[in-house]
């Protein structure tokens, strides 16, 4: 048997600082941290973007997750990406095709005219609808992982983009059915318009996603606002209805107006974009992107705590 230490430790003694054990700090602690220690969240644009770029795999994988999960249980699978916009087109044909007052481009079948608008609109509205609530829906993941929060809204936008690509198939079929060949201007106008639309959508979605965390009521109002947006955006009517002097203001606040109009006229008539509304749309998009991203980065500190 080994030798024994018989010193009986005393009951209720305070934890002693034995060896290099540090303890019992609680006594002299102030109730609040000194002000010079207060943490201020600074998100530099450059590091934020490089972090985001480093996390691109996460965006792809989350998008893949959503796409797989979305269609795994549905019998019609990916076909739903086509069915929804086509059903919307059917409704519009039933209701609006006879109403000439809305102004359709001359010599263009109504279904093609409307479907181009629907394509643009569906991408935007679905992105905003799902992306706006992406942070809420991924709360569980967000409170346990540390990758950039932008990944969640961006991932849902990517999912919508994939669905939108599929929804182009009916458009191709419509072109074949009506024996219309898209005009050459399509080649450069449409990609430019898609870029503007994507950037606008990203900016608005990021801002809305950040605000919804702070104001849950917004999540209830959002679908209504989106529905209203369908009617104030030239999806079923033509942009030229708006008086020329107001087009610049409209284009700034709703870049989708010039985007849809220019895409349509380029594909169907070979027309070039009208410069003034387009400039307004680009300026508007830049503002949405800057403000949306700033809001997002600013509120990001709270996301994991209050979501």
């Amino acid at each position, binding site marked *: 048997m080994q030798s024994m230490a018989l010193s009986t430790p005393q009951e209720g003694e305070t934890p002693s600082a034995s060896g290099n054990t540090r303890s019992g700090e*609680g006594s002299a602690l102030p109730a609040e941290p000194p002000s010079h220690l207060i*943490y201020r969240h600074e998100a530099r644009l450059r590091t934020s973007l490089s972090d985001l770029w480093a996390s691109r795999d996460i965006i792809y994988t989350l998008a893949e997750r959503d796409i797989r999960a979305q269609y795994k249980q549905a019998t019609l699978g990916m076909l739903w990406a086509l069915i929804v916009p086509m059903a919307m087109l059917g409704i519009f044909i039933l209701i609006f095709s006879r109403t000439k007052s809305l102004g359709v481009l001359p010599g263009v079948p109504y279904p093609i005219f409307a479907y181009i608008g629907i394509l643009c609109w569906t991408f935007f509205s679905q992105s905003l609808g799902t992306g706006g609530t992406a942070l809420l829906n991924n709360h569980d993941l967000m409170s346990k*992982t540390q990758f950039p929060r932008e990944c969640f809204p961006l991932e849902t936008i990517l999912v919508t983009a994939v669905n939108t690509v599929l929804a182009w198939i009916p458009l191709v079929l419509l072109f074949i059915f009506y024996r219309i060949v898209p005009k050459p201007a399509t080649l450069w106008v449409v990609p430019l318009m898609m870029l503007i639309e994507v950037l606008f959508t990203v900016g608005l979605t990021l801002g809305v996603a950040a605000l919804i965390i702070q104001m849950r009521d917004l999540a209830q109002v959002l679908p209504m606002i989106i529905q209203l947006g369908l009617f104030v955006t030239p999806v079923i009517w033509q942009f030229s209805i708006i008086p020329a002097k107001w087009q610049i203001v409209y284009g700034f606040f709703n870049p989708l107006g010039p985007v849809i109009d220019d895409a349509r006229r380029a594909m169907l008539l070979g027309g070039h974009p009208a410069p003034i509304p387009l400039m307004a749309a680009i300026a508007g998009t830049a503002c949405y992107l800057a403000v949306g991203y700033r809001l997002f980065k600013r509120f990001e500190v709270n996301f994991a705590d209050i979501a």
Partner: protein
Amino acid sequence: MPTLPKGSIRVEHVWKKFRADRTAPLFYDQILRARRSLTGGGGRPYRWVLKDVSVTVEPGGTLGLIGINGSGKTTLLKIISGTTYQSAGQLQAEGRLGALLSVTSGIHPDLTGRENVFLYGAVLGMRRKISRERFDEIVEFAGLADAIDRQVKFFSLGMQMRLGFSIAAFLEPDILLVDEVLSVGDANFQQKCLRRIEEVVRQGTTLVYVSHDLTSVEATCQRSLWLADAVVQAAGPTREVAALYRKSVEQDASLATSNDGVVRMLKSSITGPDGGPVLSLEDAEIQLTLNSPEAVEADFYVGVSLGTAFPMFITKYHGLFPSGDFEVKCQLHHVPLFKGRYSIWTAMTSFGKWADNPLLPWKPAVAFDAFGPDVLEPPQGVMVAAPLHVGTTWSVE
């Protein structure tokens, strides 16, 4: 701030506040707060969950976080991982982080195990290419080769946890943060996980480990931090911190002891040889004085636990007990205990009208120190330090 080498963590005077229980919707709440700060009235609308916490971990170091539920362990881990931000103070964590804060939150129930490997791998920061290369190893480690193409919603929680941990185990980050996540797996898999954690640490990864299981903290972490009520109670070598923590938990438990049975415990004590302290492998005597309103035939139980939680052994006596005050003595032969702090538990049960309620409920009666050789240092990969001391005679031929 100077740049630290990869794998270092430096937490300096970190404070974290949480919004106090929310009484108004968020936005309205903010209006209220703004008004309060203008008028300067009302109590604080938040509470501190971490107060002035500082800790440094060198590259390759291991830190255990211990403390009762709600003491701020997980919040500290989340701040280190960057999941949430500190309210005050500074934080540096250099290098690639792997945080295992919850094993199932990144796993999607509708996807198959295979798809989830890539999903969770990505969420934890593993590049796709690496996930693909490590896939077979991960599945083998998880022991899920048969189930990997099944949807995860048909997995048991334990299987999900195994999948989650296996992915994290092959991350090879500079800093690995592990929250209380192993408790779901079976004992075999827990051992496997701890071995894997040790392997990762040997390769130079910094580890921060949160667990309620003190023995696993003692087996994996050199240093520990004990948090209580948002404040650092003690920090230092794990064995010392854990000992202080055990002592405090035990004091809380003995305070909770009260007499709510029919039989009351009046006095309890234990003595070693010649009335001195309890010594390893020597005899000891437990003396209890009790009071019963009537004579009963009953079973009397005496047990001993390490600290107040970890049961060591139990004995039983059946017999007649008189009414009024009486004394129970129990001789323990060759007390098989290492040096340490233990508790004696007692209970008394009977039959007939006493069948439903114990005469004396199962509770700690008295704490005591045993003196003797120290608990053997557990070898690498052995989770529970074997707590019983058995008299042995060795021979090698």
